[in-house]
């Protein structure tokens, strides 16, 4: 087995769901905005106007790509901030988050607890804000995602309540890549909203407060599209979403930049206090090179998505077929087809994910795992657990996410070394039936 420790010159990067390298064209687009066009968009003089013009041009371009109005694009620092802004920004319209010493809300603007619907396998940037609000008097429903990792629209329908203010469901899951039926879910939410509106018009409301206008428009529908943005349709009208998160670092754009799309009429309370940028919703000097890079990255990935999708689906299916056939007791996590073109997530029983990741790293391959052993909290992947599989599946889960630089040759190399690594780890594993 020592023969597998060979000297690797080339690195094979298969963790594109963690982050992507910059597209050289994106880098080129950004180049002008470090030394030459460095101005603050809020400044009145030429340098400022120049920067402002570039930011607004990027905003307009992005709006066009997702079929939104430019005013609906709020630039942020990334996916986590956009998710937080969507959830807390909506939640703060309905309550002040101050609580008494028993943890009850001191002021709510609607009768009864405000309610949020999300799923068990959301990203932590959505789950943890929801858990935070739960501690402060909100009711939160965490929907099941079934064995295949896909939310059932009828479950959303059943969970909707008079007091539901927000539904937050990801477009595609970051660990197993399963794509959620967003248009079907948005239709259910729309119908529910319309029914609520009609009911209110036919009878005099018991709620006489100033928030009633906003209340009528709820529940809002937020979608985290970070993983989907490189491969799926982002037309917000077709999708029927009210709020949508996108970030740069998953679509061959820069890190530290993201956006939240917010439909006209949705009032978001800012998370931070400061200047008047981004329509007073997100203070702070704009990340000009980042914004330019995000627009460029989104344009390129949306333009090339169909071609790239086709290429990656073929590679993905080839990889899955070989891996599950050549490694005994290995199982694909998530629906085999209704998943992102680049996602391969398998549980290799009798092995532990961190050990596999470290072995493959030594052999030149970068991938990731949902094993408890690699997380700070030592908690196993909540995504694999949400599929209802035993702990062993999470412990031995490995995720490969393909991207622009990967070829069939890369997969063949992984399939040359992975069986040996698995065999070795199973040899020293206390649970593996030899």
């Amino acid at each position, binding site marked *: 087995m*020592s023969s597998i*420790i060979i000297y690797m010159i080339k690195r094979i990067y298969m963790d594109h769901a963690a982050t992507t390298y910059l597209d050289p064209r994106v880098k080129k687009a950004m180049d002008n905005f470090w030394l030459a066009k460095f101005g603050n968009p809020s400044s009145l003089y030429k340098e400022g106007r120049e920067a402002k013009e570039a930011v607004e041009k990027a905003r307009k371009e992005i709006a066009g790509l997702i079929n939104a109005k430019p005013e609906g694009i709020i630039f942020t620092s990334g996916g986590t901030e956009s998710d937080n802004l969507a959830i807390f920004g909506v939640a703060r319209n309905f309550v002040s988050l101050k609580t008494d010493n028993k943890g009850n809300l001191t002021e709510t603007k609607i009768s009864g607890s405000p309610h949020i619907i999300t799923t068990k396998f959301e990203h932590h940037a959505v789950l943890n804000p929801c858990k935070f609000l739960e501690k402060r008097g909100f009711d939160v429903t965490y929907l099941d995602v079934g064995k295949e990792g896909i939310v059932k629209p009828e479950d959303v329908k059943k969970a909707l309540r008079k007091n539901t203010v927000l539904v937050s469901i990801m477009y595609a899951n970051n660990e197993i890549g399963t794509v959620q039926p967003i248009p079907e879910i948005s239709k259910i939410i729309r119908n529910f909203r319309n029914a609520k509106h009609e009911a209110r018009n036919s009878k005099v409301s018991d709620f006489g407060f100033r928030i009633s206008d906003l209340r009528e428009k709820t529940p809002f529908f937020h979608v985290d599209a970070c993983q989907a943005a490189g491969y799926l349709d982002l037309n917000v009208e077709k999708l029927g979403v009210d709020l949508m998160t996108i970030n740069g670092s998953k679509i061959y754009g820069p890190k530290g930049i993201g956006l939240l799309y917010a439909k006209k009429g949705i009032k978001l309370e800012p998370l931070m206090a400061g200047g008047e940028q981004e329509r007073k919703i997100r203070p702070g000097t704009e990340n000009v090179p980042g914004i330019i890079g995000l627009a460029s990255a989104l344009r390129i990935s949306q333009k090339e998505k169909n071609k790239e999708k086709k290429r990656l689906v073929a590679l993905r299916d080839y990889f899955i077929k070989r891996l599950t056939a050549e490694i005994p007791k290995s199982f694909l996590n998530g629906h085999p087809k209704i998943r992102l073109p680049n996602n391969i997530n398998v549980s290799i029983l*009798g*092995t*532990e994910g*961190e*050990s596999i990741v*470290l*072995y493959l790293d*030594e052999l030149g391959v970068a991938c990731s795992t949902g*094993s*408890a*052993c*690699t997380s*700070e909290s*030592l908690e*196993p992947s909540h995504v694999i657990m949400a599929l209802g599989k035993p*702990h*062993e599946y*999470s*412990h031995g889960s490995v995720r490969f996410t393909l991207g622009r630089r990967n070829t069939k040759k890369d997969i063949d190399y992984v399939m040359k070394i992975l069986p040996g690594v698995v065999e070795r780890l199973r*040899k*020293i*594993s*206390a*649970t*593996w039936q*030899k």
Partner: protein
Amino acid sequence: MAKVEQWYYSDKVKEHFFKPKNFLAKDPGEGEFDAYGEAGNFACGDIMKMWLKIEPETKRIKDLKWQTWGCATAIASTSIFSEMVTEKEGMTLEEALKITPADIAKRLGGIPSRKFHCSVLADQAFKNAVDNYYKKLIK
């Protein structure tokens, strides 16, 4: 930690992770060992099994073999424990029982504190094996 040229864990962890010592590759034969012990950590999912061969007069450890379904630090800490108790003429059971997880971590050149309680299972599996050994002697 986390310098690119260095490994994620210490070099000693790396050495024992990639070339673990004394693991049992196949199931033990009948009467091949004098004692068996196990330990596990449900939170992290790591499970450890350990087999001992003991010199009956001196109570010195002649051989120690193990298996683990664990992460890199679990594999490395068990491997180095097996080396510690069997090197030279082998420790006596009494001496080996005094080895603490801190001793193991120290000899590994340190491991992250969050990994300490879940992955250092060797001393627990060993205590369990020694318990079982004496129980068997009393019978």
